[in-house]
């Protein structure tokens, strides 16, 4: 049991270390880091820009209204070292994003994991 707890603790610590730098550029103060947000929608475009690559997506909410979301992740320099390119995410892709939403309820998320329709998952992070 102790071993499992230690493993969990180490796992959490590693996750913090790895996920921290997603915010390295601008800090976390604009985000609700107390809750994990999940957003599912259809990509309208993928912007390969600094300091964060941005995914624009349409998300249909519970009442059937389409919300225009923007999702940011790492910068192109760090993403390309993990095998990403400007074509990794394409318009029309159905994706699920897991991350932290901005405070105040804006349609903007900083994501640490993307899941594609075929089940493929990518977790962008700086790996120095």
């Amino acid at each position, binding site marked *: 049991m102790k071993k499992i707890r230690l493993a969990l603790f180490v796992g959490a610590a590693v996750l913090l270390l790895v996920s921290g730098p997603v915010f390295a550029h601008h800090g976390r103060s604009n985000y609700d880091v107390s809750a994990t947000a999940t957003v599912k929608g259809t990509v309208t475009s993928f912007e390969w820009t600094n300091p964060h690559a941005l995914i624009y997506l349409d998300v249909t909410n519970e009442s059937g209204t389409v919300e225009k979301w923007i999702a940011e992740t790492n910068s192109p320099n760090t993403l*390309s*070292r993990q095998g990403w390119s400007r074509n990794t995410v394409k318009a029309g892709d159905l994706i699920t994003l897991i991350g932290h939403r901005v405070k105040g309820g804006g349609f903007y998320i900083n994501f640490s994991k993307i899941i594609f329709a075929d089940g493929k998952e990518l977790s962008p992070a700086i790996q120095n």
Partner: protein
Amino acid sequence: MRNQWMGSIFVMLTVLAFSPAIFAQTAGQPEAKKAKSAISAPDLTGVWANITESAATFNPKEDPSFQPWADAKWKANKNTDPGQPGITNGRVDLDPTVASCFPTGMPRLMTEVFPFEILQVRDRVIILFEKDYAVSHIWTDGRKLPEDPDPSYMGYSVGKWDGDTLVVDTIGLKDITWLDRIGHPHSDALHVTGRIRRINPDRLQIDWTFEDPKAFTKPWTGRTIYRRHPDWNLEEFISCEDRLLHGGESLEQKAVKEHGQ
């Protein structure tokens, strides 16, 4: 008389004709020596990435001993956000690089998460930074630091070898930059000394001393560690592209503002 003139002109022409060769030869010998010393110098070349624990500063255990004005500035810059799991940056709205798009500059570039590449040539060691596409020229040709250089973002650096360690002195730094990523301030009197050593084939260690008589009451010291990535190439990182594209504000800033935060 005329012959004497002709003779003088002939001598002068002869001297002129040979003089480039003489200069070339005298200049050539020290060049050869320098080239030899560059080859025998320890090899620091490669792409290096910051793996220091608490990499956002040079010394997470102890702040510089600040003069009162600098201490007030540090208290303002310091990130006290309770949602921050570890200190990775200072107050974002006061950060000259993040909030106002100023160049990161030295020595803060050495605390950033993005890698740099070291090149060694005959007369200098060059550090190419992925962030801002900045370049630091560390002159190793024996020159001294200038007396009163005009301040710049990268400063003026000279280096000399002490055994396997490259000792780099940097002055002439603009005070508009932060000293590190967490927001320690400095003045234009900052003198940075970095002792760069390859402690094993894949690790670079730099021991730092920061002297700043205008901002500190005593020198501040620290250490940073970098890992070599033989399979990495430098990419490009430009801080403010989002704002240039979206009318002066990042989309994150807009999203927060539009919802009354």
